[in-house]
């Protein structure tokens, strides 16, 4: 019937025409290259929000303005096998730094077997981060604070631009300096980073 008009050997299906695809591929690749270069020069800030995958940040030194830290409660999904006898709730520590500069930053993300390693700020210009918020983390390093207030109510904090829940124990400080920072976490990290001297690679081991 209908196949008479379209002989089987010349059935027409759609396909990708390379020349046509190249019309978009050229400008798109160029734009991507420009974005990468601008990021590597620190001209534009890249935004991160990472959770649920192992994520490590190390830096030789972190200097921050507007530091706040307070506790919080995270709820697990209903029936989560990790809930155990905790009732599905977990206490987390939220650390927020309004503006931070990091030298010799190394971030590694475990993507199941292979680590993606981002290095930046190794040159003369350090990495700058804005609104660095870490939710439930292990932070180690040699820390120094200036004008620290320990034991304030988290909802009254003024030094950063974050506010915790009312009645929540917390601490805040004007500035924080952490040498040999090492932060490993499986929970949330979010920040806007300017990454001068960006170097991106895939390696077997992380930072």
């Amino acid at each position, binding site marked *: 019937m209908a196949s008479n008009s379209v002989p089987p050997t010349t059935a027409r299906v*759609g396909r990708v025409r390379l020349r046509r695809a190249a019309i978009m591929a050229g400008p798109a690749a160029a734009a991507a290259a420009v974005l990468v270069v601008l990021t590597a020069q620190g001209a534009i800030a890249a935004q991160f929000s990472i*959770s649920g995958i192992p994520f490590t940040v190390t830096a030789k030194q972190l200097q921050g303005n507007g530091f706040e830290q307070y506790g919080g409660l995270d709820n697990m999904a209903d029936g989560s096998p990790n809930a155990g006898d905790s009732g599905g709730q977990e206490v987390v520590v939220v650390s927020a730094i309004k503006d931070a500069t990091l030298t010799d930053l190394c971030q590694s993300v475990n993507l199941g077997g292979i680590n993606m390693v981002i290095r930046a700020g190794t040159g003369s210009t350090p990495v700058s981060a804005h609104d660095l918020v870490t939710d439930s983390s292990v932070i180690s390093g040699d820390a120094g604070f200036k004008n620290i207030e320990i034991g304030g109510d988290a909802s009254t904090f003024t030094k950063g631009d974050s506010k915790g829940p009312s009645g929540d124990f917390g601490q805040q400080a004007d500035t924080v300096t952490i040498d040999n920072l090492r932060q490993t976490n499986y929970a949330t990290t979010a920040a806007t980073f300017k990454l001068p001297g960006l170097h991106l690679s895939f390696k077997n081991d992380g930072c």
Partner: protein
Amino acid sequence: MTDPDQAVTPDADADAQADESAHPAEPGVGRWRAWRGRRPFAGGVLVTLAGAEILATEKASFGVIVHIGMQGLSGYLIPVVMVVCGLLLLFNPAQRLFYSILSVLLTLGSWVTSNLGGFFIGLLLGLVGSCLSFGWLPDQAPRRRRWGRRAPSTS
């Protein structure tokens, strides 16, 4: 870059394509190939995967998103719209130009807003997928001398 299987068109395909509803007993494989042949299949799948990959790398808790505000929200919005674009490329191929241009712009934006484009992987998938969708044309002659088609040995 084109899927070689897509070019394999056994006899059943022509029928299925010409009048699909009249052949309910059509072999499933043939119908599947015909369905793929009518849409930018590889491109749509890649764009969908790219959006999903970027989404999978970022699962910030709601409190943190609220803290970051609009920028934090855009980190999610972009991969979600990428997934939508990829699915629309598959299920509404007539509008593929708009969807592919939108998805290439979103893919580029995801570098800034969403974990460097899902740690580069989503960025690559999205760019390749958008370009494949953009370059896709329906109703092409089955034999192009510039790229050899695999003989239909599988059927």
